[in-house]
């Protein structure tokens, strides 16, 4: 019998994302953010998502907030790094249009670790007492007693998002993925999530995986579908493939700051019928100029 390929179209793969679900998407600042997937989710008009991001996220969440898709954010860092604050996130929090689970780097990483292993929670150092996090987010930071030492510590909950989207450079049809450049916590998020979608610059043959299995960074056994999306992280960067499109990011940030994200969404998210049409809009010359081996 033939093995079943997990390769799907963008629309097919993302039909699993429904109102009210928890969604994780990987990124560290502008690196390998699955922005083609984010545009698809926005086009689907999904509502009331709970975003469980990586510790340093920004544009993906800001764009989904602008598109009205977000109900709750586990916020460790939601910003535009060298372009400043994330304007839609900022306004939505100030106007109480979204719910926050005030978080930090360690509580997300350790929460995913617990989720990946099926552990109910993670015990964290007692020093959170010195911060305002337990007061701002008593749902996540609960003071408990270490049963071994009798000392206080904090429990943070396991994170098991309904769907995780991970963008990589190479993936075979069975979901064995290779990350080039950064390797942050994608493997752990893939194990923690209930459903994993890999978006990849290129689908590569299984023979390449088998020739160098140590280069696989996410095992296909935890992956549900694979979508081929060249320049799928644009306008962000995809290490070893292309750099970030700074003028486009500046345009996003500027429109967002001015409260004109609807114009951006109309032009770049709802305008193009699919990812191919989006790339046509950006233009071959521009995309080729972004290519980088680093």
């Amino acid at each position, binding site marked *: 019998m033939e093995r079943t390929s997990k390769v799907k179209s963008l629309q097919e793969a993302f039909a699993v994302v429904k109102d009210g679900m928890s969604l994780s998407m990987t990124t*560290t*600042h*502008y*690196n390998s953010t699955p922005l083609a997937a984010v545009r698809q989710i926005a086009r689907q008009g999904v509502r009331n998502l709970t975003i469980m991001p*990586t*510790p*340093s996220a*920004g544009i993906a969440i800001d764009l989904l907030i602008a598109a009205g898709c977000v109900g709750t954010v586990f*916020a*460790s*860092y*939601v*910003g535009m*790094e*060298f372009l400043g*604050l*994330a304007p839609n*996130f*900022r306004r939505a*929090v*100030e106007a109480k249009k979204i719910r926050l689970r*005030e*978080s*930090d*780097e*360690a509580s997300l*990483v*350790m929460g995913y*670790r617990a989720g990946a292993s099926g552990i109910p929670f993670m015990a964290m*150092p*007692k*020093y*959170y*007492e*010195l*911060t*305002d*996090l337990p007061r*701002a987010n008593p749902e996540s930071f609960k003071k408990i007693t270490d049963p071994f030492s009798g000392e206080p510590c904090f429990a943070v909950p396991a994170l098991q998002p309904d769907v995780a989207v991970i963008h990589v450079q190479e993936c075979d049809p069975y979901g064995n993925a290779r990350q080039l*450049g*950064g*390797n*942050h*916590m994608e493997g*752990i998020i893939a194990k923690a999530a209930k459903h994993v979608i890999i978006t990849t610059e290129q689908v590569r043959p299984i023979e390449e995986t088998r020739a160098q299995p140590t280069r696989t960074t996410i095992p296909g056994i935890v992956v549900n579908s694979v979508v081929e999306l060249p320049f799928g992280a644009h306008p962000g*960067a995809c*290490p*070893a493939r292309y750099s970030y499109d700074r003028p486009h990011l500046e345009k996003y940030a500027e429109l967002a700051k001015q409260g004109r994200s609807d114009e951006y969404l109309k032009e770049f998210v709802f305008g193009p019928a699919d990812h191919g049409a989006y790339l046509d809009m950006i233009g071959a010359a521009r995309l080729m100029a972004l290519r980088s081996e*680093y």
Partner: protein
Amino acid sequence: MSSATNEAAPAEVIACVLARQLEDQEIAALGAASQLAMAAVKLARSMHAPNLSWLCGGSGAINSQLPLLLESAADPRNLFGAEYRYSMEDAVDLQMRGRISTAFLGGIQVDKFGNLNMVCAGDYDKPRMRGPGSVGLPFAASFRRTIIYIQHHDPRVLVEKVDFVSGPGHSPQRAKWAVPSSRGPYLIVTPLAVFDFDTPDKQARLVSVHPGVSVDEVLAKTGFKPLLADPVTVTQAPSAEELRILRSEIDLNGVLRRLIRH
């Protein structure tokens, strides 16, 4: 604009102040958009601390050799010449357990006890301004020492008391809760001045003003009333050798010369 090309830019002064604090054998860490701290660790390694190791934010690079200061510490080009690419979970393990000896941190607010805030200005439930979030600032309770640096010396940044504690500074209860090896904030370095915490209750003390800056200007632009060292000195200007290394080995694109303007 400086008339003499040899005159140090404000960001070069800060980079040199930060670099001089670092000792050989240390492990230093820095976060996003940290060109000043990045310049400092590279300068210290070149000048006096060849065994200093450092973690370059989201890039995962340990001991990057890139001769440029990129606008993003997470840029994978920082892996140039590095010795290891750490993952996010490596980063948490190394930081939370207390292996980092010096971390360079900042915030949207810094108070006189070195508490750091990246969450909000105003009341948490009704913020005037929502910031990005706490990210790695709670590790201020596990880093052995924290050097705080900011790029804008402004009374809205240097405040009496932060509106949200993301990174804990000095307090009477600190010793009870922090990682035992964590000694807390060590310095605040700004475009105008240097503060330490060498006072009985560990509140900030103005120790030096940068060349050309007056004590009165610093006090007028600081939102808390710092104690004053006796005397308040002038920050040691970058040496010719420090400037040569910065400009010819670390910052080939001249980022520091444009970063902060008075």
